[in-house]
C-alpha cells in the first residue's frame, strides 16, 4: 500500500514540476489536469469519494477546459513548438 501511495505522490509532484517547466503551454495545461487527477485518486485512498468526484470533475474537467479555451483565445495553443498558427486540420 505504501508503494502505491509513494508512486502516486511522486507522479503528482512530477506533473506539478512539469507544469512549471514545460515550454509548450498546451502541454502544461494537460499536466495540470494530471495533477488534479492524481489528487483525486489520493482523495479516494483517503476515503473521501464525494471530494474525489468533485476534484476530478472540476479540476481535471472544467478547469482544464477553461484553461484550454483561454489558450485558444490568446492564440497560444500550439501542438508543437514552432508549429505555424492558424491552418490546422480540424
Amino acid at each position, binding site marked *: *500500500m*505504501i508503494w502505491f*501511495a*509513494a508512486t*502516486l*505522490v511522486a507522479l*503528482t*509532484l512530477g506533473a*506539478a*514540476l512539469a*507544469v*512549471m517547466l514545460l515550454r509548450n*503551454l498546451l502541454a*502544461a*495545461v494537460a499536466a*495540470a489536469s494530471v*495533477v*488534479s487527477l492524481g*489528487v483525486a485518486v*489520493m*482523495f479516494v485512498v*483517503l*476515503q*473521501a*469519494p*464525494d*471530494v474525489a468526484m*468533485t*476534484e476530478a470533475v*472540476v*479540476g481535471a474537467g*472544467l*478547469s482544464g477546459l*477553461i*484553461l484550454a479555451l*483561454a*489558450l485558444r*483565445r*490568446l492564440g*497560444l495553443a500550439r501542438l508543437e513548438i514552432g508549429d505555424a498558427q492558424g491552418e490546422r486540420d480540424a
Partner: protein
Amino acid sequence: MSASIGLVFFVGAIGLSLIGIAGMLLSNHLFRMVLALAIAEAGANLLLILAGYRWDAVAPILVDGQPAQAMVDPVPQAMVLTAIVIGVGVQALALSLVIRVRQRYGTLDMRVARQCMQDELDEAAGVTPGRSQERPAGGRPLPTPIAEAGGRHD
C-alpha cells in the same frame, strides 16, 4: 497502513502547495501564474482532507443494510467541496483578466504589462513618466528651486 503513509501524503500535500506558490512568485508569464494557482489550491485541499482521516475508517456514507462503522471526519470534506468550486471560480475570473490584459497591452509578460500600465496611469494623471532609474543629479541636500534658473522642472 502504517504511519509512514501519512508522511508520504503530507510530503505530497506540502510539496504541491510549495510548488504552486513558488510558481506564482517566480514566473513572469501571466498564464503560468494561473496554472500555479490551480496547483497550489489542489495542494491546500489535500492538506485539509489529510487532517480528517482516521485509521481503518470508511467513507461517511451510510450504506443501508450495514451497521454504522467508524467513519472519517465529514466536516473537512464539506469544506473542501466548497473550496474546490470556489477555486475554479477564481481561476475563471483570473483567465478573463489575463485575456483582457493581452487584448489591451498585447503582451503576457508581467514586467512589460506592468510597465505599460504604469505609463498609462502616469499619462492619464498628467505626471511625466519618471523612467530613469538613476539617481537625480545634484548635490545632497537638493538646492531649493526658488532662485535657480530653470529650476527643477523637467
